[in-house]
């Protein structure tokens, strides 16, 4: 006898919305907020207990500014950062003097800021809800069946937005996709962790005296000498330090087995008051994160690396002598799984040449950044320190008219994805596709077909609401 959450005979509970967003990470909160503020009855669903995704991990928000230091993402991102600032959790935008600008926030304050922004926009939320099935009818998604501890529920909507990171809804509706490099290679998964009580002065003093350990001046747009970059980094007076695997400190530690092989030890401030930094360094490559068993099995090794690295920092890195372990991210961080095939494909050339487009709905400015296994990492700069436009068609899966996607599952070649996968860009995509969904539900046309929204109308609305579409390099 088989007994399930819902006996076969009984009906599912159901609800209907204008727009349903699946996945409450950086892209999903932006999408849901944009849809709701533009008047759509919007439900945001996440399989986990809360909203925020990788924004809660402690890694900085990449892709908000281009290498020149021009802000290339506004709108929802700006509102979110302002809310973090009001709550005392905005550390600031800073340059790594290697290649990119990053935006640093306190991930715990970010939790509050995300909740406040969703609430202000009037987004309805449903957490701990796993999308079990996608219901389709003649090229449209009509509903999703979600399950939680109390049962199954059919949620119908005019428009759907897939911000699951893995393109789960799009794939469930039959969209085509590519995984990783197509032959089992994936960028590594990571467990970000944090250390409190770090002495920034001692850390900067150490790197100033031992600059060979630093990754500096990788981007040809940076015209300063390496020495000038070092002075710039020190003058910034932040624990924003990128220790490179080829430097004497890490290479010796990796060679002796004191530290696991890694390409990076990226230190980023998360809290001024707690003198706390996040560490982006642990890694296990080629885990297919859509394979739950494989992802779960990665945890012990990642936690081993976390503990290994915190000891290494305290023993070997000046500034960390008195620092204490302050915790891990709430979950394993995932860089790469599926890319959905959309009406357009963001190409490597688009990204590297900083291509501008009339149908651009948001901008990316993070260098092409493909982490490999061990100490391997490919980084390629965007031309002239600039940014590229993401065409609307990259967010529209082929053949499913009322579905939009945003986040790391966008339609892109792998190197282009290596740039567009970062959170700042995900937020820009999210705002765009959420706004498009709201427009697709306006007036008499309530068919929810995002694909039919004229890109000019979308761009006008986005610009009115603070999105940055033009006027940057």
């Amino acid at each position, binding site marked *: 006898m088989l007994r399930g959450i819902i006996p076969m005979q009984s009906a599912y509970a159901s609800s209907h919305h204008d727009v349903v967003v699946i996945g409450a990470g950086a892209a999903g909160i932006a999408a849901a907020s944009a849809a709701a503020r533009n008047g759509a009855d919007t439900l945001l669903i996440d399989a986990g*207990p809360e909203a925020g995704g990788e924004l809660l991990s402690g890694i900085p928000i990449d892709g908000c500014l281009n290498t020149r230091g021009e802000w290339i993402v506004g709108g929802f991102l700006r509102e979110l950062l302002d809310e973090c600032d009001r709550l005392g959790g905005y550390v600031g935008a800073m340059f790594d003097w290697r290649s990119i600008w990053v935006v640093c926030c306190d991930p*715990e304050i970010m939790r509050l800021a995300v*909740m406040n922004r969703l609430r202000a926009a009037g987004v309805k939320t449903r957490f701990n809800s*796993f999308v079990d099935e996608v219901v389709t009818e003649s090229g449209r998604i009509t509903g999703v069946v979600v*399950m939680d*501890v109390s049962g199954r529920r059919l949620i119908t909507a005019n428009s759907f937005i897939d911000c699951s990171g893995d393109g789960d809804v799009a794939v469930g509706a039959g969209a085509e996709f590519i995984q990783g490099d197509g032959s089992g290679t994936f960028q590594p998964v990571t467990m970000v962790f944090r250390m409190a009580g770090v002495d920034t002065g001692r850390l900067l003093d150490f790197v100033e005296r031992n600059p060979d350990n630093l990754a500096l001046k990788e981007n040809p747009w940076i015209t300063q000498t390496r020495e000038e970059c070092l002075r710039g980094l020190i003058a910034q007076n932040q624990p924003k330090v990128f220790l490179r695997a080829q430097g004497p400190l890490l290479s010796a530690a990796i060679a002796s087995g004191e530290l696991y092989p890694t390409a990076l030890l990226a230190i980023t401030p998360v809290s001024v008051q*707690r003198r706390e930094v996040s560490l982006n360094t642990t890694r296990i490559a080629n885990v297919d994160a859509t394979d*739950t068993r494989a992802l*779960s099995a990665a945890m012990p090794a990642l936690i081993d690396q976390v503990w290994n690295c915190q000891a290494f920092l305290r023993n070997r890195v000046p500034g960390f002598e008195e620092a204490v*372990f302050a915790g891990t991210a709430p979950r394993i961080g995932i860089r790469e799984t599926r890319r959905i095939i959309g009406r357009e494909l963001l190409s490597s050339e688009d990204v590297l040449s900083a291509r501008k487009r009339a149908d651009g709905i948001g901008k990316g400015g993070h260098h092409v950044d493909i982490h490999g296994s061990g100490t391997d990492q490919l980084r390629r700069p965007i031309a002239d320190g600039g940014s590229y436009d993401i065409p609307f068609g990259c967010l529209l899966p082929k053949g499913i008219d009322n579905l939009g996607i945003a986040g790391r599952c966008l339609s892109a070649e792998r190197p282009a994805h290596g740039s567009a996968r970062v959170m700042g860009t995900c937020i820009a995509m999210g705002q765009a596709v959420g706004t498009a969904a709201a427009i697709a539900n306006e007036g008499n046309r309530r068919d929810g077909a995002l694909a039919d929204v004229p890109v000019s109308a979308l761009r006008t609305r986005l610009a009115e609401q603070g999105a940055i579409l033009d006027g940057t390099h």
Partner: protein
Amino acid sequence: MASVATDVLVIGGGAAGIAAAVTARRNGAEAILVEAGPMLGGELLHGLPLAGLYTAQGGRAVGGFADGFLAACARYGSETAPLRDFHARTLVCLDPEAIKVAVIDLTHGAGVKALMYTLVDQVATDGDGRIAGVILRNKAGRTLVRAKIVIDATDGGTVAALADYPPLDTSAEVDRAAPLVFRMAGVDAAAFLEHLAAAPETLAAPAHPAIAADRAAAASGLRDQGRVLAVLDPAAPQMRAAVAAGRMIGSAGAAIAQTSAARRDVVIRVDRPQGVDPARIERAAGIEICAGFLRSALPGFSQAVISAVHPGVPVPFVRPMLGDRVLGRDAGPAGPGVVDTVARGCHGTRGADLSGDGAFDIPLGCMLPRGVRNLLVIGGGLSADPSISEDAAATGTRLALGEAAGTAAALAAGPAPDLRRIDIAGLRRSLRQQGALLEAAR
């Protein structure tokens, strides 16, 4: 659908489930541990101190697996000494960030196969009083797990409910309104404790004279203990004035406990927050008000900043099933000469029953739902009367329940498994050998 077989399948990766899976494995059984979320640890991860390991008077009520758990937390930097709240409990204030690492160490070290991000979809029964299989659902699809013994360590008694085993009549269900839970760092413990000693009316009155004579004695005890731990009185003049002025939300009280001395980090639990639903995103505004109140009103908190926010709803969703025995209703031995105590719990605030040693016996029968031979229920589905279910749900008690269930499961995981046919004396012997405490201290 893929299918796998195992000796023991544990559903729910919180305190009870971790203890059960690790203990089953240590007793020679294969164990798969399934967790719905992205991390193992459940409520252990959010900073609230562990109740149930020690009685209100400070006597040890739980040993065994819990000893190893505390030792692992200590290895990763947590303090583990028992602390008295001088209100109703003796607590262990652990660092939840150390726990995150410790639980991976313990489960992986024991060879438990952990599966995160995974829900229970369906339960299949075989017509012979056994669960034949459990269908799991996650991103990778569905998997049928055929297990000799299933342990339901979920908050909601999910497996028992899916299999339609009868629920306990809980017309007298206790109100389990969720609290607000968050952490703050940069707290000056000495300044805070001095303030309590100078203004003991801030504190909730001791629940029993044996705990402390009065508030002043409690405040002085807390100060001598030297760690941030306090239960605040919602009716204290300062609190009432702040609520009246809109600088604090109304509540049924607040408790503050250290999580990390090194980070000067504490956890704050605000009970029954008025006008704030902790289950909704609106809770962010409530937390902001509470943190602001603490900063402005409590010495020691003036430089404190929010350091963590509970991600979800902290109170377990409880759905007790009807077991062979009902904890809190059926006292005494199961039958003539049958001693079936396999764990012990501690009376907390509600009971304040300090007539005995402050602890109560938990029989194996309250983990065994009627009508099934191979299922143990040790989370929110435990067969316990509402009068005692909150004490039985204390995290420390769940470690003891998990150890008992994991050991019983390993003993029963043979052919034709039947938990009612295991040698209870042998089970109790094994538990004692593992260090579990089954009798009142003499």
